[in-house]
């Protein structure tokens, strides 16, 4: 009896004992990291909507023996067992036992099948006003220039020895777009989903710190003071209504593999512009986006189990993600300088840095940096145009990338 009681007590202390083993140290490090993510989200307001659930998911995944991410059911085994009935062997019954962990259920529900990023995209589309972009469509080119970091980082990742698909998933951090990064990496490198997602969201939040030094380094005082005239073009409601449909068809025809990404963002925008489904618009930008963000955050955080996350590759992913965002800014501002020269000094090169998907943060950075040198310089609307162009550009670049990989996949 006493022995049984001791055995029972032993079971209760398994988790604590594990934390003080060599393997447990890793869990302790990850629990500290979870605390840091939660701290950054709650007290420093760094992407709180994501870092809080990601941090909590990370915390849950690193409590020893929690088994919240256990994939308990084998659908094939279940099917065979049902067919065999009572004659099914014990081993098969064990395989078919449905003890899937609570977070694994969420993961399977919306990350493994890429649903949650798409639901968030519908919300983003419903929240985005493309009018500044429509008023000056040429600004879309900044949205393309701002994605060059993706492709340059792909080369760097390959040089560091990452396999083709992993390199591609890492490079997509350069899209500066969390849902896109999750969508691509869950398809091609689900084993790297945790570090890639955390890197993507962390660097998105760090845009106001990463970009200004590069913007200053790459431009002259005269260029930074360039004033751009206010838009004079007016946009008809019909143009605003047809824009999402045209974008969906064009990008769908060019890169059908990436259509879910573009279609979801444009569906949200179409609902916003048509004005007939205001309830759906409100639901998309609030309830649906919020629920998807919560589940997505917890599920991403739970992929950060110590044995998978504390690897040299994680450090490499964070370094490459940083390089990707820097390269986006360098090429964007460089493209802005080309436009400055081509237009005889009518385009402020600073707006090139807004050609990424971090909306509206990148546009605000341009406005703040421009006003540091000329208080009367109002670049915000132009930067917003480039920034919304960056949103479309990042999705287009990801779509092009997916289409290319699909075409080349049989060769590697």
């Amino acid at each position, binding site marked *: 009896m006493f022995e049984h009681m001791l055995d029972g007590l032993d079971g209760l202390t398994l988790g604590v004992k594990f934390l003080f083993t060599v393997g447990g140290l890793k869990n302790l490090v990850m629990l500290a990291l979870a605390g840091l993510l939660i701290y950054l989200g709650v007290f420093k307001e760094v992407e709180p909507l994501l870092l809080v659930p990601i941090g909590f998911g990370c915390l849950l995944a690193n409590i020893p023996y929690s088994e919240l991410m256990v994939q308990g059911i084998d659908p094939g085994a279940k099917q065979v067992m049902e067919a065999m009935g009572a004659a099914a062997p014990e081993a098969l019954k064990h395989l078919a036992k449905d003890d899937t962990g609570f977070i694994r259920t969420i993961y399977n529900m919306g990350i493994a099948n890429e649903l949650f990023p798409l639901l968030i995209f519908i919300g983003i589309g419903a929240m985005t006003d493309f009018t500044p972009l429509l008023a000056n469509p040429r600004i879309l080119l900044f949205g393309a220039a701002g*994605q060059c970091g993706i492709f340059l980082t*792909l080369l760097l990742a390959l040089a560091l020895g990452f396999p083709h698909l992993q390199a591609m998933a890492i490079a997509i951090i350069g899209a500066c777009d969390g849902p896109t990064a999750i969508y691509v990496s869950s398809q091609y490198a689900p084993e790297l989903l945790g570090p890639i997602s955390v890197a993507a969201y962390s660097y998105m939040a760090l845009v106001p710190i990463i970009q200004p030094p590069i913007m200053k380094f790459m431009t002259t005082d005269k260029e930074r003071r360039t004033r751009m005239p206010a838009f004079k*073009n007016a946009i008809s409601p019909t*143009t605003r209504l*047809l824009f999402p449909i045209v974008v969906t068809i064009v*990008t769908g025809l060019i890169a059908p593999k990436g259509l879910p990404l573009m279609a979801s963002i444009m569906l949200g925008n179409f609902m916003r512009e048509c004005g007939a489904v205001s309830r759906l618009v409100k639901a998309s930008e609030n309830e649906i986006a919020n629920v998807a963000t919560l589940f997505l955050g917890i599920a991403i955080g739970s992929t950060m189990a110590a044995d998978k996350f504390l690897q040299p590759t994680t450090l490499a992913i964070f370094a490459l993600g940083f390089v990707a965002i820097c390269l986006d800014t360098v090429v964007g501002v460089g493209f802005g300088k080309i436009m400055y020269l081509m237009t005889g000094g009518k385009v402020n090169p600073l707006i090139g840095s807004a050609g990424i998907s971090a909306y509206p943060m990148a546009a605000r950075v341009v406005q703040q940096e421009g006003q540091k040198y000329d208080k009367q310089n109002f670049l915000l609307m132009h930067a917003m145009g480039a920034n919304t162009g960056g949103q479309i550009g990042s999705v287009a670049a990801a779509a092009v990338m997916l289409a*290319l990989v699909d075409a080349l996949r049989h060769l590697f």
Partner: protein
Amino acid sequence: MDKWSFGLTMMIVGISGTFVTMAILIGAIQLLKKIFPAEANGDAKKS
């Protein structure tokens, strides 16, 4: 396909593909603005 061929193909075709997509979209927007000018719609929104 070795990794460098893959990387360079992705980079060249990827960047070009993204720019071409954007260029087509610019053309499409210009066309939309021509077909549906703001003046024709009384409730046009000034940007």
